[in-house]
């Protein structure tokens, strides 16, 4: 399957934290084709294993990209059938006004998040953001009609189709971090054409957006020698400072900071240079906001790396990435993995 096709399928399927199982039907078959084993663990993480060649010391590399996405949850149904809701994960209330949504009840129900007509607004109202607790969803049914269709606790996602912009840019909801899952898939395909010693575990993790939870349990279970989180980084836009951001189309961000093993990071940079793969640096002095922060402190501690795919408008429903950046992330990962051997691993991990 083409990476863009996979990404489209992933983004057009909802997988709000805690409700990720919907992606199993998409990820399992395509990952299975290139891997030796695939399982779903107790929390719902999908773990695919690609065995290494001549792996005498049984060395293990774990890649993690989270498949969950932020969303909403049904809290209350009003007398007139309007739905009150809360958020799952970091949602800016300003980004959901006037959106179309899908309420994942007994069946998927279309709805819209209402807005007050400008004609009726007080002068100072217009400058204030509307709070989530003051918003309602209209699914066009009465409370009685809804009783058999929707329950408190059902998840709600913003309805947005995957679309192609100019050049290699695409826009969708939840490219954070389905772009990362797509990068893992591309990496598997790259590795199937290369020889590598380490066993590689490709983990599509759950519940990253609510506290990197799937990464904790999967890293514990796999107990890898090296953990690599693939997530998204802030794409450059005019309102953001240059030092906080990555440029679009200029390759993955390689994270530098306390979350990152310095020896491995140096190796990663060398590989990028050797193979002419564009990359940028991302600075994060403390724990990153990725699965990497969980992996690093699992068991007795695991040397960790983070790669960030540049992404604009993070946590809105119109996130933008450049497909080239995903491909370069995958390529860098694959070549990096081929350079890790039973012989050099200990040296690389030494301080």
């Amino acid at each position, binding site marked *: 399957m083409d990476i863009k096709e996979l990404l489209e399928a992933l983004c057009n399927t909802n997988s709000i934290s805690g409700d990720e199982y919907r992606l199993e039907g998409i990820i399992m078959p395509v990952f299975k084709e290139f891997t030796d084993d695939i399982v779903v663990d107790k929390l719902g993480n999908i773990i695919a294993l690609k065995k290494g060649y001549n792996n005498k010391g049984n060395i293990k590399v774990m890649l993690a990209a989270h498949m969950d996405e932020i969303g909403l949850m049904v809290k209350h149904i009003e007398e007139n059938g309007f739905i009150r809701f809360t958020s799952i994960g970091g949602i800016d209330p300003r980004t959901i006004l006037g*959106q179309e949504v899908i309420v994942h009840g007994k069946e998927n129900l279309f709805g819209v998040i209402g*807005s007050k007509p400008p004609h*009726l607004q007080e002068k100072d109202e217009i400058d204030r953001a509307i709070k989530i607790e003051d918003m309602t969803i209209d699914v066009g049914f009465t409370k009685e009609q809804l009783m058999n269709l929707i329950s408190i606790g059902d998840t709600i996602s913003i309805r947005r189709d995957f679309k*192609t912009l*100019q050049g290699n840019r695409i826009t969708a909801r939840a490219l954070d971090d389905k772009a990362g899952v797509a990068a893992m898939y591309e990496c598997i395909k790259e590795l199937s054409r290369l020889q590598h010693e380490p066993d590689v575990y490709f983990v599509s993790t759950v519940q990253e957006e609510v506290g990197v939870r799937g990464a904790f349990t999967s890293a514990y279970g796999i107990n890898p020698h090296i953990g690599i989180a693939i997530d998204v980084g802030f794409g450059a*836009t005019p309102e953001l400072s240059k030092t906080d951001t990555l440029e679009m189309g200029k390759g993955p961000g390689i994270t530098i900071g306390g979350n990152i093993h310095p020896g491995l990071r140096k190796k990663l940079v060398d590989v990028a240079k050797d193979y002419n793969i564009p990359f940028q640096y991302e600075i994060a002095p403390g724990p990153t906001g990725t699965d990497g922060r969980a992996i690093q402190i699992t068991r007795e501690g695991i040397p960790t790396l983070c790669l960030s795919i540049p992404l604009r408008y*993070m946590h809105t429903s119109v996130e933008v990435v450049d497909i080239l950046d995903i491909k370069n992330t995958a390529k860098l990962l694959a070549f990096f993995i081929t350079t890790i051997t039973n012989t050099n691993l200990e040296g690389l991990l030494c301080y």
Partner: protein
Amino acid sequence: MLLKKLTEASGVSGNEKEVRNIILDEIQDFVDDIKVDRLGNIIAYKKGKDNPKKLMITAHMDEVGLMITDIDDMGLLKFTTVGGIDKRILVSKPVLIGDNKVLGVIGAKPIHLQKREEWQNALEIEQLYIDIGVNNKTEGEKLVSIGDYVIFNSQYVEFGDKLVKAKALDNRVGCSLLIELIKEIEDIGFYGVFTVMEEVGLVGAGPVAYTVEPDLSIILEGTLCYDIPKLDSHLIPTHLNKGPAISLMDRTTLFDMEFRKRITKIAEENHIPYQYRKSSMGGNDSGKIHTTKEGSVTATISVPCRNIHSPTSVMSKQDYENTYKLLKTILLEYEKGEL
């Protein structure tokens, strides 16, 4: 489907061409005279038996939207609003730009990089921009020009219990009603008029009234509906599913009481549900029509639309059908000379 075609067409005030062409196509075989005037208004006439009063039914064709004002060095597009748009509903939406409908998105600063007080305040138009995926100004200029009109990328969707979601229901719903009337009604003489630029100040309506000189005018609209829970009933301008809304007054017109009462009486006699539009805010083409030349008696009949002026406006097909029924009945009364 007519309403789908009309709502998905691009017709921001001053750029009504696409909508105008759909309407011309639909009605030209059903009218006795039709012309597009100097401003772009459509004035159609259907012949019928002589009536002492000249009747004009109007609907505006335009919708609110955006216009490109600049392309910056990164290829991002700055814009301004055309008509009354709540800046807060623009964030995190896809849009279509210009005649070629280039897809773009209006993004926002990631919540991770915001200070707490930031997300309590609305984003200003000046802080927003459209991203079409190009790298720089030169690439952007090949696809987009300053002055291009921008519409919301929002499809017609039927959902819930006979509801419709679309952009531009204000006022393609009025256009759709008027087109259907023109196509169905026979032997009743009236002017069917589709105006331009209502949303930027009732621009087309004055010249149209000047040309037609109507005695009676009915303005068809999609109007405010804000029936959220726990709002005092007197603050609710209209309810969904309670039938056509008859205007009492707004910022531009005090509607003729006799005409209004005649209309509600017709509704009652024919068991057609109706409601009053209980807000004096907003205004429509009636404001110009009732004061042009020696004046005209006017009434406004509207289909209630939730989330008006947003990409996700909502109306009820039941309200649409009842509005149509009322209009047809009014025309029959008019034919009898009893309006």
